[in-house]
């Protein structure tokens, strides 16, 4: 076996060398920093890393911190609605654009351009538009509709939906592009077959076409999920976590504790919790989507 392995390596030596940068990045930049961060979560580090050992203290503190629990709850709500709305809206847009509409490229550009803007811009501008003193509410009051209320950004109950609105605006275009690309790849014979069978169009989409677009859907969900877990800039720009702690998110909790509050121990404990959560949720998805099929021969 040993000889065989070395022969295998020898034959594919260049490939091994070519993958070296990736291996280095994975081992040092990703695994290394993750391990480092897990290690620090068991220390009493404040502003600078300390390498003592305090057991699970930071975790106990973490789950005794109302703001962290709020953050987790908020993330769940955001994740659910953001994924759902982004996906539904993006898919509907793609389907409608695919109906041979005029000015298709114009519509496509309009729905996709927010993705080119940064999250900071998305947060700032929507904060402005939804601000009751400046934006839509103010304008409606100016027109005489003084009972009109649109106070999402200042209302603890609704602020999460304001964040979701801004992120949907930012991300729905990407879903549209992915699904549209998928629709363009659907075999025309399928459409002919369903017309012969007399199946209504909506039924064809729901039961036949969308299941065929599974890879596109998974990819868009993966990309959206990445932005959810990392969601930080948009919240900072839009609400800075407020009112109160109503729109706090985990990445912001980590960031605040890492820099503003000089609490590396707690921050790394929080990021370890996020890491494990992501691992539990995403590992099966990534595995089934990208690794289930056995590798190809070469």
């Amino acid at each position, binding site marked *: 076996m040993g000889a065989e392995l070395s022969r295998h390596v020898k034959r594919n030596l260049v490939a091994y060398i070519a993958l070296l940068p990736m291996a280095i990045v994975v081992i040092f930049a990703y695994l290394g920093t993750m391990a480092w961060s897990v290690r620090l979560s068991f220390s009493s580090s*404040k*502003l*600078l890393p300390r390498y003592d050992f305090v057991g699970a203290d930071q975790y106990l*503190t973490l789950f*005794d*911190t*109302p*703001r962290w629990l709020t953050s987790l709850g908020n993330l769940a709500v955001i994740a659910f609605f953001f994924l759902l709305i982004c996906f539904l809206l993006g898919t509907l847009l793609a389907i409608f654009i695919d109906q041979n509409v005029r000015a298709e490229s114009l519509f496509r550009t309009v729905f996709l351009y927010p993705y080119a803007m940064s999250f900071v811009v998305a947060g700032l501008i929507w*904060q402005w538009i939804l*601000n*009751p*003193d400046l934006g839509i509410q103010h304008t409606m009051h100016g027109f005489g509709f003084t009972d009109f209320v649109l*106070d999402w*950004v*200042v*209302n*603890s109950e609704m*602020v999460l939906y304001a964040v979701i609105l801004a992120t949907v605006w930012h991300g729905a275009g990407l879903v549209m592009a992915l699904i549209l690309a998928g629709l363009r790849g659907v075999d025309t014979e399928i459409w002919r077959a369903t017309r012969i069978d007399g199946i209504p169009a909506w039924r064809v989409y729901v039961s036949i076409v969308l299941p065929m677009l599974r890879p596109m859907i998974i990819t868009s969900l993966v990309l959206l999920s990445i932005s959810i877990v990392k969601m930080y800039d948009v919240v900072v720009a839009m*609400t*800075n*976590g*407020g*009112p*109160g*702690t*109503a729109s706090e998110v985990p990445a912001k909790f980590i960031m*605040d*504790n890492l*820099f*503003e*509050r*000089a*609490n590396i121990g*707690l921050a790394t404990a929080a990021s370890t919790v996020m890491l494990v959560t992501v691992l539990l949720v995403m590992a099966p998805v990534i595995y089934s989507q990208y690794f289930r099929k056995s590798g190809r021969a070469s």
Partner: protein
Amino acid sequence: MIGMKQMVAVSAIAIAAATGVAKAEEPLKAEVIHWWTSGGESAAIKVFADAFNAAGGEWVDNAVAGGSAARSAAINRIVGGDPSTAALFNTSRQYHEIIGEGLLNDIDEVATKNNWDKVLPEPIAKAVKVDGKYYAAPVNIHMPLWIWYSNAALSKAGVEKPPETMDEFFAALDKLKAAGITPLALGGQRWQENSLFSAMLTNVGGGELWKSVYGDKDEAAIRSPEFRKVIETFISLKPYVDQASPGRNWNDTTALLIKDEAGFQVMGDWAKGEFKQANKEIGKDYGCIPGLRPDSPYVLGGDVFVFPKTDDAEQVKAQQLLVETMTSPDVQVKFNNLKGSIPIRADVDMSSLDACAQLGMKIMSDPARQAPDASQMMEESVYGSVQDIVTELWNTPMTVDQAVERFEKALKG
């Protein structure tokens, strides 16, 4: 890049060696990281830059908007081994751990020479002195808990004179509310809500409670009826705040006073800058209340510069020149006039200061009324938890009992 840097360094040495004395005449370069990016702040820091340049230095400005962004940039560069010459911090414990790691140069030499032990107010000296050595140069004193009011708004609501006690304050709030004016302008951001709470703690609870709760973290004080009263008073302010408060920036909030749309705002003395910019005059258009009891404590906040460790003699020289120029009396007056704060030393000519600043200087001259800012009395992580409690207290229906319990947990933690 590394190669380039070395090349430059090598050639610099070569040139220096060749020209001999040339190096001595080179200006002392000092790169300063700070977050003072607005118009007024820029004008203020320009005073430092000009003074430093005039003293033979070369000020290299590195402004990063946002205090925490600027501070983390500074810290990253310190641990990255590529520190700036100086970096701005708040007068707090933010930098104490870096001192512990031996990453800052002390400035004892300049401090001793200038007799800082005598000149500086005690809370400030305490904040910048660690293990008997000065590690940071304070450049200003901000009192973060001033109560500002709009004259026009008050008179419109029939408030005869600015309140001097809590009772009068509430009476004024009620009148304003009845007159359809927003009684209390508050920017619903964590730190602003926290300023309001601190103002209640100092004005309802008084200086002793301030020090025993935030400073000593005394359990009895936290559980005392006095502290409960502070919390109750804070909660009772909610109805006086307008609906659009959450997330509003402090300066947009001050603008409500400027436009006479609101009566009061609790804000640091930097708010003067906003009034000034809007051509409003102290006394005529607006006024400042330092406290709502005769012995209300004067909370001393402010900003300091720290000087990262370096072995480069030129840099050390530059650092000392920075301290020297920034804390000199003339520069102090000029700078603080623009910054809205008051000088760190009492031995300056106060005549050019505005009325509020002069009032502040007068109160501060009584050591009994001097009080350290909350951030100087606890670690940032603890202070962060306290701020979280305050913001939740303001924005959720938390009971007083729950609040007391959480304060105790956070402070004793």
